[in-house]
């Protein structure tokens, strides 16, 4: 998955598991940037009566580096508080929920948002209501209305939302983890399989999102407006994190956290901890700062997957095999994931943050939103998409598969000829033929407005099991 259950320890702690991070210039508010961090992966919409919620004992963070050192210059911190109206019922809701203040909603969450800079911290909002989970048509008949009520305006032209959303990331989990069964080369696999359409494993599952939309000046060095794409001040690095207190005392049906905040989850670029970082390092990686990435440099320069593709598809990647056999360091991947692309590599574009290697989602916020976005982002000649930030619909799996397969190596070595297969490989659906709207065919629905991730699937219409036949 993008970063869902990507490391052994955090896989046991879904409330703190940061699954996806998005950063993009808001298409309908282009003077703002939207940042979204998702948590609590693979939610079965019918998972009551204890429906999904943020952790009161977790500190959620979205961090921004605006001077290239990989340290946070601006942080947005989110802390949640759960309240139960009636502890004598087992029910999440005792009737239809039509507003965020209905007494029929038994268990609800509110949160506080704090902005932290070197100048100090400022609370942007407190007692902000989350929406309920999407239980079903009897409990939450107008879910879109409830979600709209949970979009809160904050001082300074900011907006925030925290609550359940439809999963935005799509992937054929069953195929990709079955020895890399990828399209359109299934017949060329070392264990050939018949060609078949992809199955989106995240269709119908939900996630919890923290989304904040802020003016560009809120993020940039010196409050720069982002007027010029060539100006270094237009590039920001973004990562999200979740922290828990060092100790948790369990007993008497409750737990009491004690001690300083310790980072347990981190996410910048998608799929890094999932695919680049080896199993034995994943948990440690989650606890480190993004600018401590130099210790993992060899995993970026010589990614395991680049060596596997020619083995799994013996005839499809001869040039990649030769590149890998020579032991060539993948400077293209290091640039894309750890420093950003400097000016001159792709005409008219840069998202370079300097020499400091740090896993951050880099966004040149001077690049205007695309009127006809490509799911392949920068690989599809759409500079408004990944790896220039990341939009909710970008096919990051296919983009990174193609990059690892050698499609981007020619950016740093003009003599290298990528295998034709590197520009064809994909996971669920062919991104070169798709649009954000066409992803509805694989169960992905997005919004045109904040918070952009779609309405979560409801528990009644998205049962977790196959219905039994009549009379059983």
């Amino acid at each position, binding site marked *: 998955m993008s970063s869902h259950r990507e490391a052994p320890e955090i896989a046991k702690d879904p409330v703190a598991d940061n699954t996806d991070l998005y950063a993009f210039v808001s298409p309908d508010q282009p003077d703002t940037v939207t940042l979204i961090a998702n948590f609590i992966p693979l939610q079965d919409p019918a998972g009551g009566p204890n429906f999904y919620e943020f952790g009161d004992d977790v500190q959620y963070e979205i961090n921004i580096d605006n001077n290239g050192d990989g340290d946070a210059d601006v942080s947005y911190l989110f802390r949640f508080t759960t309240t139960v109206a009636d502890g004598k019922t087992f029910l999440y809701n005792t009737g239809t929920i039509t507003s965020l203040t209905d007494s029929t909603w038994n268990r609800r969450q509110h949160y506080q948002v704090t902005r932290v800079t070197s100048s100090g911290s400022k609370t942007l909002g407190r007692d902000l209501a989350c929406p309920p989970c999407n239980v079903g048509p009897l409990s939450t008949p107008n879910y879109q209305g409830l979600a709209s009520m949970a979009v809160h305006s904050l001082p300074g032209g900011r907006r925030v939302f925290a609550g359940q959303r439809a999963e935005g990331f799509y992937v054929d989990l069953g195929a990709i983890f079955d020895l890399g069964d990828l399209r359109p080369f299934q017949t060329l696999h070392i264990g050939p399989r018949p060609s078949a359409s992809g199955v989106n494993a995240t269709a119908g599952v939900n996630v919890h999102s923290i989304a904040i939309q802020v003016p560009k000046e809120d993020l940039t060095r010196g409050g720069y407006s982002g007027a010029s794409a060539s100006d270094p001040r237009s590039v920001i690095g973004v990562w999200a994190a979740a922290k828990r*207190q*060092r*100790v948790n*005392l369990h007993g008497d049906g409750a737990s*009491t956290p*004690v*001690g*300083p*905040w310790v980072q347990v989850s981190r996410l910048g670029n998608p799929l890094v901890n999932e695919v680049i970082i080896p199993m034995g390092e994943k948990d440690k990686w989650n606890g480190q700062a993004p600018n401590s990435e130099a210790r993992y440099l060899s995993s970026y320069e010589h990614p395991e997957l680049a060596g596997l593709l020619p083995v799994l598809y013996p005839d499809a990647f001869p040039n990649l095999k030769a590149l890998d056999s020579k032991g060539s360091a993948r400077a293209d991947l290091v640039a894309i994931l750890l420093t950003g692309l400097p000016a001159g590599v792709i005409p008219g574009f840069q998202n370079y943050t300097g020499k400091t290697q740090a896993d951050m989602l880099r966004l040149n916020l001077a690049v205007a939103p695309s009127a006809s976005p490509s799911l392949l982002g920068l690989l599809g000649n759409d500079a408004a998409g990944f790896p220039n930030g990341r939009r909710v619909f970008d096919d990051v799996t296919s983009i990174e598969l193609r990059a690892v397969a050698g499609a981007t190596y020619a950016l740093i070595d003009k003599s290298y000829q990528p295998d034709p297969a590197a520009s064809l490989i994909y996971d669920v659906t062919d991104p070169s033929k798709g649009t954000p709207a066409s992803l509805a065919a694989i169960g992905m629905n997005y919004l045109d407005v904040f918070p952009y991730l779609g309405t979560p699937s409801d528990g009644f219409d998205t049962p977790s099991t196959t219905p039994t036949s009549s009379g059983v």
Partner: protein
Amino acid sequence: MKQVSRRTFLRQASLGAAAVGVATTVPSFLRPGGQGGAKATPAAQLGKVSHDGPLVAHIDDVNTGEITVMVGTRQVTYRNDEVARGLLRATE
């Protein structure tokens, strides 16, 4: 003889075992009349404390004498060999 069902026997047996467990695991100096030596200091003599939540002391290696004390979201580490060893003895 009073009939003992399998269920009541198990309940009585487990309660008895629990009582034995308590008696054998509580450090002697914590038990009334135990041989721990140190007398409890009256709370009034310790001075007032203002923190309501728990305090956790963590010792990674007793031999170093380093004690990390956590209160709220704060943490301090200091060294006191005697306290570190005393805490270990309390668990014996």
